């Protein structure tokens, strides 16, 4: 086994996912099979290969520095169930202080 249950559970928590015991078991099996599948990369000599990018979009287009205000900011804000006086209200992040 490549990854233990504990390791997979830690990764899940990094992703802010709390798994049930059954979910965890399924995930462990899935991840380990998956990593085995990816081990096939080792058969290839990748040393001098460049990471992929499309030839046609090799260059990032640049936008002019012109202000175009979004016309529907209220439409954004209305979608949150946590808005108070136009601010987004969240539980206090105790850890950071």
């Amino acid at each position, binding site marked *: 086994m490549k990854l233990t249950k504990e390791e997979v559970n830690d990764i899940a928590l*990094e992703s*802010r996912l709390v798994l049930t015991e059954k979910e965890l078991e399924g995930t462990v099996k899935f991840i380990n099979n998956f990593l085995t599948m990816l081990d096939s990369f080792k058969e290839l000599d990748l040393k001098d290969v460049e*990471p992929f*990018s*499309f030839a046609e*979009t*090799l*260059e*990032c*287009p*640049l*936008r*002019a*520095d*012109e*202000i*175009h*205000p*979004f016309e529907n*900011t209220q439409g*954004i*804000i209305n979608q949150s169930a946590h808005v*108070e*006086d*136009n*601010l*987004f*209200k*969240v*539980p*206090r*992040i105790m*850890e*950071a*202080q």
Partner: protein
Amino acid sequence: MPELEFTPVIGIEIHIRLKTKTKIFCSCSTNTDVPPNTHVCPVCMGLPGSLPRLNYEVVQQGMLAGMALNCEVQPKSLFFRKSYFYPDLPKGHQISQCDLPIVAGGFIEVHDENGNLKKIRVNHLHLEEDVGSLHHSASDGRLEGAAISYVDYNRSGMPLAEIVSEPDVSSAKEAVEYVTTLRRRVIYSGASDVELEKGMMRFDANVSMKCSDGRWGRKVEVKNMNSFHALEKAIEYEIKRQKKIMLQGGEILQETRHWNDAKGVTTASRVKEFYRKFIVEPDLPPLIISQEWIDKTKAMFPEMPDVRARRYVNEFKLTPEAADMLTDNKALADYFEACVKAGAEPVRASHWVRTEVLRILNEKALKIDSFNITPDSLANLIKRIDAGKISTTQAKEVFDAMTNNNLSLDEAIKSCGITEGGIVGDALSSIIQKVIAENPDVLAEIKSGKDTKGKKLKFLQGLVMKETKGQAKPQEVAEALTKALN
């Protein structure tokens, strides 16, 4: 046993807001002087389906800022996704150049403890987006223990340059000189206003200690400094703290600590360090900067303040202090140089700018850009002093009249009742005749030969000077008076 010596090894990370009209990846305004969540759109709010678009001006300003740090522009750079969960980070990841930055490999010079110049190497400057701002006490005013936080995304997506130094800094004093010099150079380059009070410059420091007995302490990352003062105090505190632990034979933990400005201490962060993983930002192709663009930017890159100051000393024979003072503010230095170009003698122009001009700017809380005496006018004023047409005392009066009443040089001279070039010849003779006529007894006394010490003559001379309102030269008055009496 020899006493143990400790050498601090310090690296500094600085975040600077770049000067653009719009955010880095969307067309929202960068003006923060608006109600919360006003300058937001699908992109800077991280809405599903939105895609980033890179701002040309951010790239331009990033290049300028990089050049201010003596960095080389990289022809190809890339954006990555830096993941962590935090409510001020709307996509759950920050788009940042991380390890393939736009510029790399520069330095900033500071003075070491012996006063010698020393290079602090700049590893690189990279572009990234800012996060939203969190307010912890908006509702009930309590700062600590409040149950809720408020998020404002106006700042989300503001263009930032992160500047990472090599661990070449050896003291809090060097750190402060490094950031001060760096700030001045970046402002000069035009890349950022770096207004400290607006939070446009934020610092983190990596502090570790090398001991003369061969021990190395682990690296501690100190975060949350928003002023030069906080940076200085935090580093001093951290050096002292680590030294003490090492002296007692203890181990320095590799950790992140937060600077508490109110208490003047660093405290260990209670969260496990954010887990960071980078993948290439698939929505932004590589940033390619052409040689032409680099050349064009180099051509528009202004002379840096320290170089300029050195030139003032060599070329204009200013004192280093005067040169420093003038070059601290680019606009002020530009003003000074315009005066010199208009024909003012440099040392005298430097004196006028540093004393009179700055006095008025201070009194009126003005910026040099909105000062109403043009460099040409000031140069002309200085030239007239030098030509002896008006005295220095008169010139100050004229200068005040020009700025206070918005007058041209000639109008101001006139309004001060000054006759340029002083009162001479017939005008002087007639004043002398008038004074003599009004003082027959004094005249009689002089003629009688009793005025052996010349007291009475001096008295008449004083009266004449008073009549001319100081616009005659004393030497000429004395000569003309003696002539008139004989």
